[in-house]
């Protein structure tokens, strides 16, 4: 490969700054007392403490899973701070009272918290370390009955909804990381869209890890009541630190009859440096339950994190429900991603679509892992899966593990997969037309990912495109 292409991959992470702010943090380590402390700090109702304790006790009996195609030194769970929050100077009466330091931090990230400065049709919940610091456009949404707030606030204001749905899609005992999250999660976002309401703006959560040695364990719960529609987007970044940090989130989606949830993620946690030092370990459980004639659509653009382990899934429980998964995962340098989806067809005439685009560069390892399961009663279920891999350079890897389980003979399941490389011929062709090599790589990669990018809300598709280009800088050596 040429020098220009090599230079391209040695690019710096642009969100790596640290905000100097007073933190309220608890000592490192995880015990039942820590779980109780977190719950107490948040003045939680009994049902939530019980949920946490059940999870914690179960977690003690579990072992970290080893089946993913990833490698990392053992994680010391006692060497992590499980709660850290920016110290509030006083109770916020309005958005204008957000700590200026915090406001600046989000401004630097391109997320102004002042409502007038925001994109007019996006409401934002900003989560800094363990807590939500601000939610915009709350009032406007409330007029329609849409609840959009931090998870902690939902626990206080709408405990009945939280109690009803928390753990209903991802049970506390689901898997090692989800169980850990259930024990120690500190905050996250919550949204409820009432019957028949079409949420008029994008709901968005921006997650920021700031504090050192801290794990981020957020929990998101979205409920779309019958016939409701909501489009939700999450973004995330973290400072450059040479130690790995753990992020273990849980997202639960509930789409009641005829509801539709579109959930988009642009994941840009700190990926570590070119030698693989530092970076976020991103172990995330995301799952949605789709009732009759409802639809859940996951779109993810995963460019950050040292390790990405996530499988946004759909339980197609109701008849005629629809599940979709559109994914672009990019690994550069020493990044590793093991990601994909599970489509569980339970209801009749359920349909699912999986489009996965994996891009590997540098020494990146990219794995697609997916399960399509057609249960006995899922008459006429259909699935279409397409998994494409693009390799840049000679030292990266792409792997595909599609699992298919069919228990109903009327099912139709299709799977297509391709692997290709960016060729010297393609690059030369672009350059001969006057396009710089790095722009050519970015253009080819975006072309490869187009099927997925077009699923993103407009405002974010452009950002995601730029991000793909940026994440690839220095991709070949």
């Amino acid at each position, binding site marked *: 490969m040429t020098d220009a292409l090599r230079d391209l991959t040695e690019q710096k992470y642009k969100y790596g700054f640290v905000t100097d702010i007073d933190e309220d943090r608890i000592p490192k380590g995880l015990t039942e007392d820590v779980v109780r402390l977190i719950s107490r700090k948040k003045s939680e109702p009994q049902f939530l403490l019980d949920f946490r304790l059940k999870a914690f006790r179960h977690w003690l009996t579990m072992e970290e899973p080893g089946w993913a195609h990833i490698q990392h030194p053992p994680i010391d769970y006692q060497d992590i701070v499980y709660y850290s929050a920016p110290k509030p100077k006083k109770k916020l009466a309005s958005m204008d009272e957000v700590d200026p330091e915090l406001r600046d931090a989000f401004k630097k990230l391109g997320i102004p918290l002042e409502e007038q400065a925001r994109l007019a049709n996006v409401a934002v919940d900003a989560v800094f370390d363990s807590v939500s610091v601000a939610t915009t456009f709350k009032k406007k949404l409330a007029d329609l009955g849409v609840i959009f707030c931090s998870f902690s606030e939902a626990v206080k204001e709408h405990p009945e909804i939280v109690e009803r749905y928390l753990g209903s899609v991802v049970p506390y005992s689901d898997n090692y990381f989800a169980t850990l999250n259930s024990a120690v999660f500190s905050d996250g976002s919550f949204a409820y869209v009432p019957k028949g309401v079409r949420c008029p703006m994008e709901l968005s959560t921006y997650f920021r890890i700031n504090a050192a040695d801290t794990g981020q364990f957020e929990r998101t719960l979205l409920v779309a009541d019958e016939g409701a529609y909501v489009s939700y987007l999450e973004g995330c970044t973290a400072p450059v630190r040479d130690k790995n940090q753990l992020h273990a989130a849980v997202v639960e989606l509930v789409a009641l009859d005829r509801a539709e949830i579109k959930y988009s993620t642009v994941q840009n946690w700190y990926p570590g440096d070119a030698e693989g030092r530092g970076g976020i370990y991103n172990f995330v459980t995301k799952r949605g339950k789709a009732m009759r004639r409802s639809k859940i659509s996951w779109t993810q653009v995963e460019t950050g994190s040292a390790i990405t382990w996530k499988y946004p899934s759909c339980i197609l429980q109701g008849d005629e429900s629809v599940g979709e998964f559109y994914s672009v995962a990019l690994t550069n340098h020493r990044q590793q991603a093991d990601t994909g989806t599970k489509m569980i067809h339970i209801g009749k005439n359920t349909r699912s679509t999986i489009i996965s685009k994996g891009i590997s560069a540098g020494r990146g390892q990219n794995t697609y892992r997916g399960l399509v399961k057609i249960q006995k009663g899922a008459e006429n279920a259909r699935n279409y899966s397409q998994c494409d891999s693009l390799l840049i350079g000679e030292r990266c890897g792409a792997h595909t593990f599609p699992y298919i389980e069919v228990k109903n003979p009327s099912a139709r399941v299709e799977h297509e997969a391709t692997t290709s490389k960016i060729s010297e011929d393609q690059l*030369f062709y*672009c350059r*001969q*037309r*006057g396009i710089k090599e790095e722009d050519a790589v970015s253009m080819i990669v975006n072309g*490869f990912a*187009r099927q997925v990018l077009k699923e993103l809300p407009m405002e974010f598709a452009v950002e995601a495109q730029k991000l793909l280009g940026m994440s690839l800088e220095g991709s070949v050596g």
Partner: protein
Amino acid sequence: MSPKEQENQPILAVEGLRARIGDREILTGLSLTVNAGQVHAIMGPNGSGKSTLAGVLAGRETAEVTGGTARLDGRDLLAMSPEDRAIAGLFLGFQYPVEIPGVGNLYFLRTALNAQRKSRGEEEIDAVDFLEFAKEKMKSVEMDPAFMSRGLNEGFSGGEKKRNEVLQMAVLEPRLAILDEIDSGLDIDALRVVARGVEALRSPVRSTVLVTHYQRLLEYVVPDVVHVMAAGRIVLSGGRELALELEKKGYAWIDEEARRGAFAEPVQVSP
């Protein structure tokens, strides 16, 4: 320089160019001058180095340049990156245009045009204006606009790819176009379209080099000068009669003469 003054000035000046692929010397001291306003044809048997020449001039790295010079408007081509050569006005029509899935034809073309305009300090052209501009050009190469929203050359037939090359040339309006076997694999209709594209670009301030194995294309585009390449050099130059003669006699005698060392110095065949 005014267009009038530019006329008959050399746009491309190549002297003693040598290049090798691995241990094999492919270009063995090639010299060629192409003046503004001219169309040159470079003919020659397979393996004579025609495509390597086109590639080396455009900055392809498959061959390593070991000697000689190549100048475009007096600027040292060999010292420039491929993209800078393109920006300086060199266009290569590819023998095998690549496919780039998912990157729209029109988008690619506008990106290329704007990259070039930007580098020259000109204003970028917006999507709406570009569409109008490109539509005109598409008509000239009889290209169905439906092709434009498809991926670059994605699923195009051989003929469609070649037309697309000519469309790109028409949009980019290069100072020097080198068309490498643009006629291979074309039926008569496509050949006519390609020829018309080349003719449309004929101007006192531009020049074109057609690299071709057959004389067929030259029935539609009349060259000012015809060169014959053998063993990595230009061994014969003349008017278009030379092409006709080659058509009649074939290339075998050239190869033979070259082996005997008959072309120690390039031969000028007077028209």
